């Protein structure tokens, strides 16, 4: 298991998703709506992805693959990876990560929406569809 470092940018994205999920949950409870919101579903998938990544970055459900067009921030000979929070959905999220800076460490570089559609809906204050969850 790797020790995990978060860039400030990645943590900000995570906290933004957290805040939205908490807000939706509170609003739903006030209205006594039982079905969880899209924001809560998305946040659960992001948190689960991060948890899997920290435990086993090679877990098949993460669909982790190398990102050739991005340079590793610590070592140009090494890679940056992308893990799927969701896939086969227009609102999918991605987690960019890399090994380092030290041995047995892993850095969460960024958590990003995948599509412009997801970005637009995010900026309007709602979230994209749930998509396919990691197993």
């Amino acid at each position, binding site marked *: 298991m790797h020790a995990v470092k978060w860039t400030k940018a990645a943590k900000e994205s995570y906290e933004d998703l957290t805040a939205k999920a908490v807000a939706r949950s509170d609003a739903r409870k006030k209205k006594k709506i039982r079905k969880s919101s899209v924001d809560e579903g998305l946040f659960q998938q992001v*948190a689960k992805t991060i948890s899997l990544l920290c435990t086993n970055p090679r877990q098949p459900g993460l669909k982790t693959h190398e990102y050739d067009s991005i*340079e590793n*921030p610590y070592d140009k000979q090494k890679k940056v990876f992308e893990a799927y929070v969701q896939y086969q959905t227009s609102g999918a999220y991605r987690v960019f990560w890399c090994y380092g800076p030290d041995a047995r460490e892993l850095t969460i570089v*960024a958590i990003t*929406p995948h599509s412009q559609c997801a970005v637009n809906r995010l900026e309007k204050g709602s979230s994209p569809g749930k998509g396919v969850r990691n197993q």
Partner: protein
Amino acid sequence: MTTKTLDSKGRVTLGSRFAGQTVVIDVSNPTCIMIRPVVMIPADEAWLYKNQTALGLVRQGLNDARSGNFADASPDVDGDLSWLNNVEDQRR
């Protein structure tokens, strides 16, 4: 600017400073051969460069990593998952 003559096979050398670069050669204009250096991006990564929000987040993250600008404390992901599971349980 310099003048070069192509050999019998239509080849010209640009010099070692261009070595290893990928270029696009545009011969659509019969009076002009245009050579433009390009950067190749895998097709499945192209979305990132079309999505300014995502690209900005990744670049900021990479800058943070290079400069050692890490979060003081990691988010409590396991705690968040517990909270989410409790929400699910209450929903049922």
